[in-house]
């Protein structure tokens, strides 16, 4: 049964910070460690593959063995990965990058497990957790351009351990209260086969992943504008989950995806218009996670892993080709958005009339 959506929001904010540090560490290394042209192409691809794809495996392990703290393992691996990228302590070109990527995957999975299990079927917790990543990406990129030492980031990564341990108590509490803490997630249509719901949800994530790179932003030329872009993305992801809890998942998913389109198209040269589009577009992120958890109620880690596989599949094309005209780019984005709208209309069930539930104890 669903509880008040404000309950256990602390877990979301703890993981907002942990996710922030994770992305700072990863993007500091990515922008600092590999400067030459060949590495600039292959390193982000390897990083994406090793950070996103194994999350389904780590998620499955985390579902089956809840006593293993993947958050702490992730923090240690992140610190080792950053240290290894700064000084040659590991053999091989990509070992440190692989350790860093797996560390990233571990903290993400633990964040998903904690925030989904203690949320009582609400999206706010996981939305706050995912929102922290965008702030971390831009901070990491900016810090990578300063003369800051790798060791500083290494110690910074280790500071997340107390926060991870604190967040872990939310998961322990949720697991003690129910044998299936994610049973309250019930937002997918029962008229569609579960396999089809999963395939369509992963495709929506992949489309989102691709569109995230394909959004026309000719206005983005300075560091301040890039900061604005990432901050808006973070606020969009965060507010998407909170609004879905207040107004209903289906309404927010369909409205944000459809309303983003005109802003994204007309905002190529106008920052303010474009940012509204980016914010609306980012709101659908937590919705797809909720759909997958709704189908895989006993395996939230595996469900989160599916979303990251979708993100990886969506990001692969951008490594190989790009559209050279805004018209072609916009046409593809429009077609993909229509696909997302139809798919979401099919797989998300109708919102309940009174979505916002009374405060517990009222």
């Amino acid at each position, binding site marked *: 049964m669903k509880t008040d959506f404000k309950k256990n929001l602390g877990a979301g904010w703890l993981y907002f910070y942990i996710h922030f540090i994770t992305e700072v560490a990863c993007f500091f290394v990515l922008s600092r460690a590999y400067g030459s042209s*060949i590495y600039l*192409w292959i390193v982000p691809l390897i990083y994406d593959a090793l950070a996103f*794809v194994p999350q389904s495996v780590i998620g499955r392990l985390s579902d089956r063995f809840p006593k293993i703290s993947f958050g702490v393992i992730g923090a240690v691996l992140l610190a080792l990965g950053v240290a290894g990228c700064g000084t040659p302590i590991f053999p091989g070109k990509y070992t440190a990058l692989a350790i860093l990527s797996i560390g990233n995957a571990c903290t993400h999975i633990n964040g998903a497990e904690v925030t989904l299990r203690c949320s009582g079927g609400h999206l706010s917790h996981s939305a706050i957790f995912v929102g922290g990543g965008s702030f971390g990406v831009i901070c990491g990129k900016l810090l990578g351009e300063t003369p800051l030492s790798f060791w500083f980031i290494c110690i910074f990564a280790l500071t997340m351990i107390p926060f991870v341990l604190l967040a872990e108590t939310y998961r322990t509490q949720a697991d003690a209260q129910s044998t299936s803490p994610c049973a309250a997630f019930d937002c997918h249509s029962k008229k569609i086969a*579960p396999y089809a719901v999963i395939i369509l949800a992963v495709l929506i994530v992949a489309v989102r992943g691709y569109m995230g790179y394909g959004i026309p932003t000719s206005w983005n030329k300075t560091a301040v504008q890039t900061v604005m872009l990432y901050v808006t993305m973070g606020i969009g992801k965060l507010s998407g989950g909170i609004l879905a809890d207040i107004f209903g998942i289906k309404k927010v998913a369909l409205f944000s995806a459809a309303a983003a389109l005109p802003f994204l198209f007309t905002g190529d040269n106008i920052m303010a218009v474009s940012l509204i589009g980016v914010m609306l577009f980012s709101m659908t992120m937590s919705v797809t996670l909720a759909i997958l958890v709704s189908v*895989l109620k006993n395996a939230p880690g*595996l469900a989160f892993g599916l979303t990251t596989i979708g993100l*990886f599949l969506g990001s692969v094309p951008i*490594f190989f*080709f790009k559209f*050279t005209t805004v018209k072609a780019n916009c046409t593809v984005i429009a077609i993909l958005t229509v696909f997302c709208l139809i798919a979401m209309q099919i797989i998300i069930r109708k919102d309940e009339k009174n979505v916002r539930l009374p405060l517990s104890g009222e």
Partner: protein
Amino acid sequence: MSDFRFLVNENFLSFVSDELWAVGAVCAAIFILTAVWVAKEIRKGKKDDDQC
């Protein structure tokens, strides 16, 4: 003018082919494993629903 262009050429891809094969193999193995686990979870969920 073409509406899109490829960002990498054959010479470049052959230079990084070992890395690409390794990444591709790891990803393919994980995709298969994930599909099997998802199928198992769905079957388990159906069984639980039937019992209810």
